[in-house]
């Protein structure tokens, strides 16, 4: 049995990791196709016919209507339209907005974590490989970067950059690579003295080749695990920044900005805050479960083998 086969067998043997995987996959599918399913745009103000007057009015503040659960909501207003999660105070369909928001949040998380992996892994591998003065300087820099609270980075960015999606991405880029670099450096230190590296060097391989084609593959497992924990952090941070008002700007929406919208209307439309919170919680849950499962699958304790 190959190494990866063993990993995947151990991963799928755990109920939690399978549940996590299913949750994440379902949410990703919904984030991709959900907005298309309703037929409304995420910034479109929908209208319905008021049954008492027969006039067409903006569908503001309609309660959710979930037919297969028997929840009728404000269905006398809907006519032939369906608003699964209801509509917000401006009459936008919350189903569409929720999944569009999930899409934006996931998009931000994937993009930033992808770049963070590249930066962090390269940094860590180079630092670990060369050692000595190079390593010292690079590690002291990391230590300083690591002692700046995330909040401080965000606040300094907020005065340097326009608010919005860009700020969120840069804030995440500046903070999340550190964990990746630590992992890959540790991995480099572990394998650097092994015989196959020495063999590679004796055969005349360049530093570049040793770092990226001999050592890099070793870091794949731990890095994927770290990614699974970084994605929820990224989504959390994004939600936090959007809530504070320096993240996603209207009329765009993300999970965080939707929670803020819901909070602002909580006394009048209390149901509005539920979908984004549930989506956020499920995303956290799913990625954390996958991360836990992967960590255990990659570094099995003797009794699990």
């Amino acid at each position, binding site marked *: 049995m190959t190494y990866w086969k063993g990993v995947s067998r151990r991963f799928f043997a755990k109920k939690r990791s399978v549940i996590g995987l299913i949750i994440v996959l379902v949410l990703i599918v919904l984030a991709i196709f959900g907005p298309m399913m309703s037929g409304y745009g995420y910034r479109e103000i929908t209208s319905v016919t008021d049954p008492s007057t027969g006039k067409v009015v903006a569908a503001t503040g309609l309660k959710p209507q979930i037919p297969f659960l028997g929840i009728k909501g404000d269905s006398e207003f809907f006519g032939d339209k369906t608003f699964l999660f209801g509509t917000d105070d401006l009459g936008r369909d919350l189903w569409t907005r929720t999944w569009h928001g999930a899409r934006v949040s996931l998009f931000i998380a994937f993009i930033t974590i992808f770049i963070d992996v590249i930066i962090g892994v390269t940094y860590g591998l180079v630092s670990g490989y060369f050692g000595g003065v190079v390593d010292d300087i690079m590690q002291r820099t990391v230590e*300083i970067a690591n002692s700046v*609270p995330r909040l401080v980075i965000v*606040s300094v960015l*907020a*005065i340097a950059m326009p608010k919005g999606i860009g700020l969120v991405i840069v804030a995440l880029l500046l903070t999340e690579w550190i964990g990746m670099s630590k992992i890959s450096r540790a991995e480099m230190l572990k394998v650097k003295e092994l015989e196959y590296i020495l063999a590679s060097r004796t055969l005349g391989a360049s530093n570049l080749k040793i770092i990226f084609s001999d050592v890099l593959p070793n870091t794949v497992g731990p890095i994927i695990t770290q990614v699974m924990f970084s994605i929820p952090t990224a989504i959390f941070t994004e939600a936090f920044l959007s809530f*504070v008002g320096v993240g996603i700007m209207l009329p765009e929406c993300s999970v965080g900005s939707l929670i803020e919208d819901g909070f602002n209307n909580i006394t009048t439309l209390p149901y509005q805050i539920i979908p984004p919170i549930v989506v*956020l919680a499920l995303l*956290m849950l799913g990625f954390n479960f996958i991360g836990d499962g992967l960590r255990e699958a990659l570094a099995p304790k003797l009794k699990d083998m």
Partner: protein
Amino acid sequence: MVKYILKRVGIAVLTLLIITFLLFVLVRIMPGNPFPSERMTDEAIAAKREEMGLNDPILVQFWAYMKNVLRGDFGKGTSLYNGAPIKTVLNKAMSNSFKIGGMAILLGTVVGLLLGIVAALNRDKFWDVFCSVFSILGVCVPAYVFLIFLQYTFAFKINLLPYFFDSTAFLESSVIPAISMSLFTMSTVARFTRNEMVEVIDSDYVLLAESKGMYGWQLVNRHILRNALIPVVTVLAPLIVDLLTGALVVEKIYGIQGIGKLMVDSISGEGIDYNYVLALAILYSALYIGIMLVLDIVYGLLDPRIRVSKKGGE
């Protein structure tokens, strides 16, 4: 040990100094006019700049600023609170934040520890399942969501607690924010304690102690807790720091005049208040580094192996 502590303190101070300098330079080179009034003539602005020392070399400016900061004087705000001295605003904000944050940490740690211990001692029974569900919930749901929920239920639906923070009724109005902020700490401490305890309970020396006839609280206290709790200290540091960050939104929602709300106000309003951003950034960095330092030392005191290995690693 004294050498170890001194070294950690030295590194911490140096790091803080470097960060403060970087922050200072960053804020100074930001585009933007510190004198927003358009009625000022160019000459008046130039004179004012000279008076405020903005034309001096950056190191001279930094030195002047640091001298004031060390005396606790952060200057005046440019747009927030009509330019009141930052020191007075900050003192009040810090007192509010630290009181509520302290309550949250205390509540979270104590309840978390108890829950973790009870869960580990009743493995796979009700409290263990409760503990794991609770810790999942704590990780998945941000503090401000708990806050919104508690606020909606206990302040809006049932008129039991104040809907917004009211400094005249400090105790009643800190219940909701303290509980919601403590939940993350509580769940993490509970999960960590439980896992560490389980590992210790399964170890050989506990088996030995048991076979020698030790049981009950004596066994738990002497052999299990002592070894299980050391790693818990390490998770406390990031938790306390997280609490500071999480408090930001909680303070904003609940209308608490704390450092978190001050930070939000200073960056998310129309006019960004550079002086507040700088002061708060320095404060947050100092808190962060300070907390890390204290817990590092505590950890070293608790577990001699750490000191030795850190010394050996050099």
